[in-house]
């Protein structure tokens, strides 16, 4: 099958020394590819080489069978538009002036804007929700607003392929979501192909059709988010030793307290999470139980403690498990009753609490 966007054995780097070799990207038209990887891994270098900001060391890049590394710069400008991490300093330029620079490849020698150009400029501003700021001085905008204006500039260039280097940097969560929504709108409605780098893995997995892990001098993986994001991929990619990354929820847990547990938390149904987090902050090792493996408490507890007594879902708690929990509880100095232990199906937790009381272990509610 012939792909719309293709790199073949692309090697990138600076001053002819190769940083990352053998990059083979294959994308259909209108898809989103996100590059993830640690700082300094070369995501920007790859994006810049594809956008011809820096020369590629070897290999080629094709868009619709056209070799874009050797086509004219003007053709390139009409095909690919970029949003960079460069901070820009303007002097008396309105937002509209900045956005209208995107029309550069289409205007005449002195750059006068036709009615059609103006229409494109204002619809781009509208798309990023900045039409009211059109005549405001670009310098007076906040970083997030500047970012949106730069996105409008890139949209205004009416490209086939969009290359964005960390477009969500400087944006708050609302604007991150809005920006990614705009990108997915463009891919759906205008069939624009997007290649970008993101730091937010959770967002990346949700917006991307394909993801690529960049690390060291090779590509660690390329595929759909489901193929890429397997157990521990992120920890390995980013060399995370202390904290953990929860793939399902995209949430980060900080480093786990080490040592023999001092506190036992009797919990379930999400009641335990605030206690887990509080103990993590104080770096007090803890045990928790008895929770089902499909319980929300389990997602957090298993990342923050090595001593979680858990039962497989949809099965009754066995005697063995109860004894394991009882062993742990007797070694602890304190037991926390997180709540939610009154139900018919967690009588074993009530039994645990009774056991603690009998052995004069301090119980906190």
């Amino acid at each position, binding site marked *: 099958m012939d792909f719309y966007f293709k790199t073949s054995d692309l090697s990138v780097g600076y001053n002819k020394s190769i940083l990352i070799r053998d990059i083979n990207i294959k994308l259909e038209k209108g898809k989103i590819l996100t590059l993830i990887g640690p700082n300094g891994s070369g995501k920007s270098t790859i994006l810049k080489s594809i956008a011809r900001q820096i020369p590629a060391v070897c290999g080629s890049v094709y868009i619709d069978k056209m070799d874009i590394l050797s086509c004219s*710069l003007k053709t390139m*400008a009409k095909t690919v538009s970029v949003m960079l991490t460069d901070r820009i300093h303007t002097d008396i330029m309105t937002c509209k*002036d900045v956005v209208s*620079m995107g029309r550069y490849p289409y205007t005449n*020698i*002195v750059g006068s804007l036709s009615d059609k150009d103006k229409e494109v400029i204002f619809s781009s501003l509208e798309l990023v929700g900045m039409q009211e700021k059109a005549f*405001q001085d670009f310098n007076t905008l906040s970083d997030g607003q500047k970012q949106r204006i730069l996105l409008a*500039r890139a949209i205004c260039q009416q490209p086939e392929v969009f290359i964005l280097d960390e477009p969500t940097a400087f944006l708050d969560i609302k604007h991150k979501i809005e920006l990614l929504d705009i990108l997915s709108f463009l891919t759906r409605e205008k069939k624009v192909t997007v290649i970008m780098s993101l730091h937010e893995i959770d967002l990346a997995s949700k917006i991307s059709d394909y993801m690529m892990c960049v690390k060291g001098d090779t590509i660690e993986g390329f595929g759909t988010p489901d193929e890429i994001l397997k157990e521990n991929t992120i920890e390995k990619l980013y060399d995370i030793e202390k904290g953990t990354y929860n793939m399902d929820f995209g949430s980060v847990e900080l480093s786990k307290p080490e040592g023999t547990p001092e506190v036992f938390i009797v919990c379930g149904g999400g009641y335990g999470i605030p206690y887990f987090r509080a103990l993590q902050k104080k770096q007090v090792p803890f045990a928790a139980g008895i929770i089902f493996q499909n319980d929300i408490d389990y997602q957090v507890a298993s990342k923050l403690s090595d001593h979680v007594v858990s039962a497989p879902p949809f099965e009754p708690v066995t005697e063995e498990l109860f004894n394991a929990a009882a062993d742990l509880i007797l070694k602890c100095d304190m037991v926390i009753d997180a709540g939610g232990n009154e139900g018919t199906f967690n009588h074993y937790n009530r039994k645990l609490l009774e056991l603690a009381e009998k052995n004069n272990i301090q119980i906190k509610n």
Partner: protein
Amino acid sequence: MMLQNKTIKPNMKSSVRFTAVMIILTGLLVFGLILNINIGSVRISAKDVFSMTGKYVLYGIKNIFSGGKFQAELSAISNASTENQIIFSIRMPRMILAAVLGGALSVSGFLLQTFFRNPIAGPFVLGISSGAKMLVGITLIFLSGYIGYISPWMLVIAAFAGSLIITIVVVIFSGRVKNMSMLLVIGIMVGYICSAVTDFCITFANDHDILNLTGWSMGTFSGADWQSVGLSAVVCIPVFFICWLMSKPMEAYSLGEGYAKSMGIRIKPFCIILIILSSILSACVTAIAGAVSFVGIAVPHITRTMLKSSKPVYVIPASFIMGAVFCVFCDLLARTVFAPTEMAISTVTSIFGAPIVIYIMVKRRRQEG
């Protein structure tokens, strides 16, 4: 940073505003030129000036189209009386020279500001004028001994070489420091070095050569004659048009190299052309009138503020006219305030220009901090 809700009002379209500014500036220029002809140690009534100028221009045009048949009439007018002589061979070339070179200097400053993406850049503060002056000085002092006669063209070429070398030096150093104030420091230091070399050469020069040099090294339009007017017009006006034709890439370049590249600009040739054009303009000024300070910074700044825009398509022509106005008035002050003693042109331009530099620095610092 506090965010003011500073809106650049859409009530006036930038093209309308540009036209208005151009009309005002042209009016001011005409006014300045008339004042310049009238005021001086010899007072000549405006009416006389108009009738004589009218005739002169008429014959001048006829002379051009007939291939020089009216030369006699032309010289008859200009030599008719002392007043006429003063007007046609002293004041007129001087004011036209001030206008053309003022415009050239402003555009040269604007090009450098575009290149360095820094409103504080200009041929004088970056030491480029001093570099040009250094080579002109060396040419006048040492080469004149060998060749005897030095044509103005040679001086322009020497000045161009000097400008270009110093610009390249500053570019190389400024590549290492991204800070705007450091660029200024480097420029000023390079300028001092060039001045030191020039002074050194003057110290060891013959008295005869220095005589040529002193008036010129102060910076003045007093040496103007029709030949230098012709030379500066031939050099500056075509260069000015080329600059104007480059205004589209210049605007794109103001967003930074990365974005400029992505819009299809070949950065290297673009930058080289920018530097060469700017060097030609500042070289022409320095070769003919000496180093003139601060015009290159002050004028583009005033122009941008007046236009409320930094679009090069508008700023370049407006800067040219504004520079002409600025220099014509400064020259008027230079020669009349303490008449019959003349001040150096830089004395006057510094008084108006240097505060503007301070203002820009303070404003920028506030924005960045």
